[in-house]
Each structure stands twice: as structure tokens, then as C-alpha cells.
């Protein structure tokens, strides 16, 4: 099920791994509450991505559309991408000044494994929005950006 894991001895190189993620993103994921795409169709190294999360039901985030920026450097997926919210959001793992998702406060990035994908990051952030410590936090006005 995990993209790019491919068994214990086969390592999918960065670029082919990102091409897989690109194609999966283009097809559309699950119920569509998380999605992502590449920012610059000319960038052969596929570094900059925009992710979208639709706020989960029964939380203060419900119905909101959050945009994030993900940057996959040359060492991805050995190292996690850098992730920051573009849309303003109030969450315990997000820096209030610049929207950066702080690895120390977000387990998936802190304990990153090569098999993890951008989809995993977005899905986990969506779950995080619904966690008890985030679901009722007062939010900045909708449509504002870091």
C-alpha cells in the first residue's frame, strides 16, 4: 500500500519516487480531503509542491481549505520535505509566526521514514486538526495567509 516502499532490498530513487507521487496526486486521493500537486511543471527535480487539506468535520476547521507548501530537497525521501502552512492556522505543531510545521512537535516528520509520502504528511496533519488539543482552538480569519 505504501508508495515507493517496494520491498526490503529495492530502493526507489528520489526522482522516480516523486514521479510516482506526482501521478498518484494527479489521479486524486481517497475522498479528496487531502490533495497535492507540483508547483512548477518545468522543474525537472520536482522540488516545490502545494498541498491542500479540507478541515475535518466536527472541528473548528470544518469546511476550511488550508494550503501548504512542501519542499522536497535533493535528499528526499531519505529526509522529510520541509512543510509549512500557507493559509493561517492555529495548531500546536505549527509555528505561529511563519506557518512552519515543526518536526519536534509533529511525530511523522520527527520520526521520518523513507517510505512516508507527502500524502501521509497531509493525512496526518488532517488527523492532527481533529485531535483534542487542536479541534477547538480559536482560528485566525479564513482566507488569511502567513
Amino acid at each position, binding site marked *: 500500500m505504501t508508495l515507493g516502499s517496494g520491498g526490503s*532490498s529495492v*530502493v*526507489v*530513487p528520489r*526522482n*522516480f519516487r516523486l*514521479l510516482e507521487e506526482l501521478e498518484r496526486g494527479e489521479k486524486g486521493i481517497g475522498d479528496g480531503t487531502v490533495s497535492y500537486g507540483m508547483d512548477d511543471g*518545468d522543474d*525537472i527535480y520536482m522540488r516545490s509542491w502545494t498541498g491542500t487539506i479540507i478541515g475535518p468535520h466536527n472541528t473548528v476547521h470544518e469546511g476550511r481549505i488550508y494550503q501548504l507548501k512542501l519542499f522536497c530537497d535533493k535528499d528526499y525521501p531519505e529526509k522529510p520535505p520541509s512543510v509549512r502552512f500557507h493559509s493561517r492556522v492555529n495548531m500546536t505543531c505549527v509555528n505561529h509566526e511563519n506557518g512552519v510545521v515543526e518536526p519536534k512537535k509533529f511525530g511523522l516528520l520527527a520520526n521520518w521514514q523513507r517510505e512516508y509520502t507527502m500524502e501521509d504528511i497531509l493525512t496526518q496533519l488532517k488527523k492532527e486538526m481533529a485531535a483534542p488539543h487542536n479541534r477547538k482552538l480559536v482560528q485566525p480569519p479564513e482566507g488569511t495567509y502567513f
Partner: protein
Amino acid sequence: MANSNLPRRIIKETQRLLSEPAPGISASPSEDNMRYFNVMILGPTQSPYEGGVFKLELFLPEEYPMAAPKVRFLTKIYHPNIDKLGRICLDILKDKWSPALQIRTVLLSIQALLSAPNPDDPLSENIAKHWKSNEAEAVETAKEWTRLYAIGA
């Protein structure tokens, strides 16, 4: 380690690629991943890509040879069957793949594709349109891109 379970077939193919390279093609595995090849293809003579050195990357997925290798251009190229990310539209890389084919045959087919662009089965719509509406001009653009991106790089 990562390469200890490399199938015999891949080892054989690699040895032959290195000892008897096909004309105008070189392919060598990376040190840390024997399924990942750095590839160079010289632009065929009498094609718009003549004189160019095109870099590609090739990866043998776990299912290989039951599944096709994955290949793409790293050098920018103006060709109706190659898109902006270097992905290649070639039947043997998709539904016409057969385990009887090899890395060598794939690379030779890509080299042949450079000699014979096929705008009727395009991956880049705009380039294909250009090719069909004004082939001479499209060929000039392809030559220009070869000069810009594939020479002396």
C-alpha cells in the same frame, strides 16, 4: 546490503552494457543502487538532436523483468513524445513491454525515437501540434534546444 539480492539477470545485463556498449549509448549503475542507471544517449546523426548528449536516468523496479524499466530524460529536449519532466511515451515502456526485452533494447528504442518522432501519439500536445502544422519549424526548434541544453553541458 541494498544490492545483495540483485537478480542474476540484472547483473548479466549490467556486465554486458559495460563491456559491449551499444553505439551512441552508455549506461552505468550508480554505486549505491545497482538498479539505478545513469544513461547518456548521443543524438542520432541526421536527426535534430545530432551533436547533443542527452542524459537520462533509468530504474529497474522490483518487478523487473516482469515490469518495464522506468526511464526519463534529464536533459531538456524538444520532442513530441517526451514531456517537460522528461517522461517518454513509448509503447514498450508501457503495454508492449515484454520480459524478453532488456535495458539495451529499451535504450536503443529511445535512440530510434529520437530519429523518428511520432506526433500522432504525443505526450506533449503543443510540440506535437507544432510538428504536424510546421515540421520544418519544429525541427528548427528541436535543433535550437539541442544547442542550448544538450551541447557542452
